């Protein structure tokens, strides 16, 4: 290398291909499983469910991010990637966050929003595609239950599994 000083910032500077820069989520690919938020050591990704509107909100806060790329390793669909961007200074707070929302699937019993996104269910179907369709539908139906219905269901099955308890109820 013969140069002494680069003409940066008047000329763009490219980071090497291995560089871990600002992470970005591709909202088209994200299924909203929340794996990234579980592995993130600095809590930069926060996943919140809004049952009233039936939406899951995914919030990526760049200012908390430490560029460890744990999220990239955990992501099952390759939606979150560390880019090679490193010039992040900005006067606007919004530039440091990426927020988007995904629709939650409806409970198969009561119709209220449950704990999974529509895309998560699609992804599950994709993974289970080697099984016959009826079986898959049965599994999905059993899983997509909201918290309240699940609680009720658990109590009911417990009662049914112990005959004595069934008698008390009768």
């Amino acid at each position, binding site marked *: 290398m013969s140069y002494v000083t680069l003409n940066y910032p008047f000329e763009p500077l490219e980071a090497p291909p291995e560089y871990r820069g600002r992470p970005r989520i591709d909202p088209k690919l994200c299924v909203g499983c929340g794996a990234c938020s579980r*592995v993130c050591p*600095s809590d930069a990704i926060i996943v919140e469910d809004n049952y009233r509107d039936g939406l899951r909100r995914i919030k990526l806060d760049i200012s908390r991010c*430490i560029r460890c*790329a744990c999220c990239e390793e955990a992501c099952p669909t390759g939606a979150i990637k560390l880019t090679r961007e490193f010039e992040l200074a900005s006067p606007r707070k919004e530039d440091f966050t990426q927020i988007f929302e995904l629709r939650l699937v409806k409970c198969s019993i009561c119709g209220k929003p449950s704990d999974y996104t529509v895309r998560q269910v699609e992804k599950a179907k994709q993974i289970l595609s080697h099984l016959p369709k009826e079986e898959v539908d049965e599994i999905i139906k059993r899983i997509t239950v909201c918290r309240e219905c699940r609680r009720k269901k658990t109590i009911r099955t417990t009662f049914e599994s112990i005959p004595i308890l069934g008698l008390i109820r009768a």
Partner: protein
Amino acid sequence: MKWTIDRVIEIIKAKFGKYIKDMYRPMANQVIIVMDKSAAPKATLFLLKEAGVPEPQLSTVVGTDERPIRGMFSIIYWVSVNAEGGDAWIGIKTYLHEDDLKIESITPLHPGANWYEREIRDLLGIIPVNHPDPRRLVLPDDFPKNIYPLRKEYDYRSKPTVTPRHVFKRPAEGTVIVPFGPYHAACDEPYHFRLYVKGEEIVDADYRGFYNHRGIEKLAESRLTYNQIPFIAERICGICGFVHSTAYCQAVENAMGIDVPERARYIRTIMLEIERIESHLLWIGIACHLAGFDTGFMHAWRIREKDMWLAERLTGNRKTYGLNVIGGVRRDILEYRKSLALNTLSELKREYKEFVDMLSSTKSFIKRCEGVGVLPYNKAVAYSTTGPTARGSGRRIDVRKDHPYAAYGELDFKVPVYKDGDVLARAMVRIDEVWESIWIIEQALDKLPGGPLRAEIKRIEPYREALSYDEAPRGENVHYVMLGRGNKVYRWKVRAPTYNNLPAVPEMLKGYTIADAPLIIASIDPCFSCTERVLVIDVRTGEKKAYTEREFNYLSIRKSRR
């Protein structure tokens, strides 16, 4: 005859047999001997002074609030056997009841224990009896009395109310005080040295630091999980971060009894050495700058840039590699990166040779360093100094050689030792070490074995403890971990190398001039963030004797007019 761990245990048994209550071996080369409170300090001093162990070193002193487990506090004095005399770490542990938190101080006989005992007094409230320095070390002086942050009942979010106050040593008759820091052109980080001078000559010095105290240990105990800590450990230091994350991961692996795959150990070694080159070149640059040789500074940093670039290509970032996890590493060194590394290293070698030739023929630099800031061998031993500071004073200690970890046991390298003890000796140790580091990386890349990168972790047994150690660019870096429940460590104690080296600086300063002070202080390559961890509170000390900025400016102007 080698000093094996069994031999050391025999010696202690012969002398202190009746005081020993329990003994267990967390690792093949580590032993924890539980002793009576009255005997533990004596046994530690015996090992350090009389036992005849080669280059004994008080590596760390760990105080733990074990009340939730055993209803008592505990102290472990970790003494290591060095100088290739045998691979042994002896932990002398004693339990203290809450009603009687007093233990005999070992500082009067071994000044290297000064800071450890003050830290334990500040953070846990265990009082070292007959300690010569009653002042605080870690906690700010305005922190309320009788609140001990490392006790388990103290919540990591609490912020006690404070009243400012700090007392410095009284100056001797006819001396003038020159405050140096917390913010000074020659300080990279906030620290405060008080130089007591007669004319130009420094007669005494005092240190007040821990302005960078961030409470990482408390945070790790109360808030973080096992897998989050490597990332915060990496951020203990801005220069030798990888050393800390490696030491933490090794400590947990040792405590859990996990065998790290060979390839992961080699990759760790390579990155540790890349970091050492980077750190040493940085230091050489700074030393040149402080000696008024700015051309050398620029050249050193230009060469360093190659190493930084290599680190970026290998791990994805110039610093904070984010590579370590418990059980191994996260990223592999692929074939194309291997050739990249070798090419860069050969370039670096060529340029570094030119640079060293130039530096050693620059009289102004050599003259500034030669015979300045001498730390004699016996003082180096008394303060338990480590790393290039110790090796510059003729101590033959290097954790890589004495207690092989990662892949160092399988690689060939030399440990440069100089006996002069001055700034030049410390500089020469570092200059030589860069060559050794390059050689280690070349070997490791050549030998790099195949296999997995991570070991599987099955179960975490709570309350097992282990020590881990590695050679940071600045010296021996020791981490102690006690595993805990609920995916959290119970106690994680970090002892960075500067913690041992910094107390020796006042010794180095005595008898030299103010103009040499920045160079002497920098010659140990101090890393204040490393040294200062444990607490969260901001320091706002009201310094009664310090000059105000105006007074100081006035004095310096008057002085330079003469």
